[in-house]
C-alpha cells in the first residue's frame, strides 16, 4: 500500500491531493502513519511500530488498519 507520489502532507496532519484539489485533516496518529508511509515504510513495518509505541491489541490494530486503508482508497490517495 503506497501513497500517491504527489500527495502533500504536513506535520499537523493536513493532506492535499494536487491532482484533484481535495484536502483532508487528520488526527495526530494518522499524521504519524502518513509520515511513515511517505518515508517508504511498509505496512508491516508501520504496524509493528504502532504496536511498540501504543497500547493496542494486534487484532484491534488489524481492524483499524483495514478501516484506514479503506479511507485512504476512498479519498483517492493510494497508488492504483
Amino acid at each position, binding site marked *: 500500500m503506497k501513497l500517491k507520489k*504527489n500527495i*502533500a502532507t504536513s506535520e499537523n496532519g493536513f493532506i*492535499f491531493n*494536487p*491532482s*484533484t*484539489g481535495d484536502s483532508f485533516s487528520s488526527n495526530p496518529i494518522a499524521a504519524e502513519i502518513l509520515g511513515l508511509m511517505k518515508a517508504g515504510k511498509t505496512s508491516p513495518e508501520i504496524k509493528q511500530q504502532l504496536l511498540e509505541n501504543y497500547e493496542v491489541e494486534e487484532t484491534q490494530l488489524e481492524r483499524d488498519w483495514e478501516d484506514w486503508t479503506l479511507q485512504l482508497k476512498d479519498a483517492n490517495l493510494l497508488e492504483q
Partner: protein
Amino acid sequence: MLNKATDKPLVIGVTALNAVDSPGPGVAVIRALRDGLGDNIRIIGLSYESLEPGVYLHNLVDKTYQIPYPSAGAEALVERLQYIHDKEDIDLIIPNFDAELYNFIKVSAQLRMIGIHTFLPTHEALEARDKINLAKFGKKHNMYVPQDKVIHKADDLKKAAEELDYPLVVKGKYYEAYVCQNLELAQKAFYQLSAKWGTPIIVQKLIKGTEINIAALGDGNGNCISIIPMRKLYITDKGKAWAGITIEDADLLDLARQFTKATNWRGGFELEIMRDASGKLYIMEVNPRFPAWIYLTAGAGQNQPAALVKMAMGETIEPFTEYQVGKMFIRYAWDHITDVNEFQQLSAFGEL
C-alpha cells in the same frame, strides 16, 4: 519594450466590469494587467451599464466610457470606439463578454487600421465551440462532449429524452441550464429558456462527476501559451466558482493543448470540464474569453492577461512551463462607496 518611444503609457480598453455575483472577468483581467505590466499602463473601462462596479474602482480603472450594446451592431461599435480612441489613443482592447465577441472580431481589422490591437479567435473558431456545435466538434476531434440534441420545439423533447434518458440537462442558447428528471420539468425548462434566450434549446445527457475549469491562452498558431486548471471548491447557486484551487493533472493540460491545436485559438478561453467516475474528461462548455477567476493565473505564476497583451503588441512569448499547484482564490463581496455625482456623470454623459 511595450511602450512607444514617447513613454506614453500603454492604453488598454477592457470590457465586462460587472463584478457582481455572476461576475464578468473585466476587473480580474485589470488586476492581472496591473500586476504584470507595471505602472506605465492606463486602463480604459468600456461599460454597457451605469452600475457596473468596476467603473467606480478608480484604483483599477482610470477612465470609463459607455459603449453600445452588441445588438446595436458593429458599425455603432466602431463609431463609438473611434470617438474614444480620438481622446485616449488606445493601444489594445480586451473584450471579455461572449455576446460582444462576434462584433469585436468583425471590426478587428478596422480597429487595427486606426492603431488599436486586439487578440481574438476567428469567427470559425468561435462558432466551432458554440454550445450548438460543441458535440459535433468533439466528435470530429476525438474529445469527449456529452451527447446532445439541438431542438426548436417543445414537442421534440420527448424524442430527445428517449435517446438521452433522464436526468437530462436543458440548456439555453446563451446562458442558463436546468437539470430535469421528467418530461414535465423538461417542458417547463424549455419554455422558460426559449422565452428568455430564444431557440434553439440544447438538451444534453447529464454527466455526473467533479467540475474542473481550465483557463488557457492560445497564440493563434495552434500553440497553447499558458494552461491553469482549477477545481471549484465553493459554487454559488448560479453555478459560479466562489473559491477554487489550482490542481496538477497532465490529462487536463493535454486536453487544453488538443483544443488549442484543433481550433488554432487566438486569445484567452476557458474549458468547463466534468471528470466522471471513470476519469473521462468531458468538455461541458468552452467560453471564448478569460474566465472571471483569471486573476488566479497571475497568482499561480502564469499571468495570462499580461501575456495576451504582450502577444497582441507583437512580442513572441514562449509557452509557460510551470505553475504553482495548490494556489487558491476566495472571492469576496464588499460595499464600495461612491457619490451620486459619479453615477450621474456616467449616466448622463457616458463617460467617467
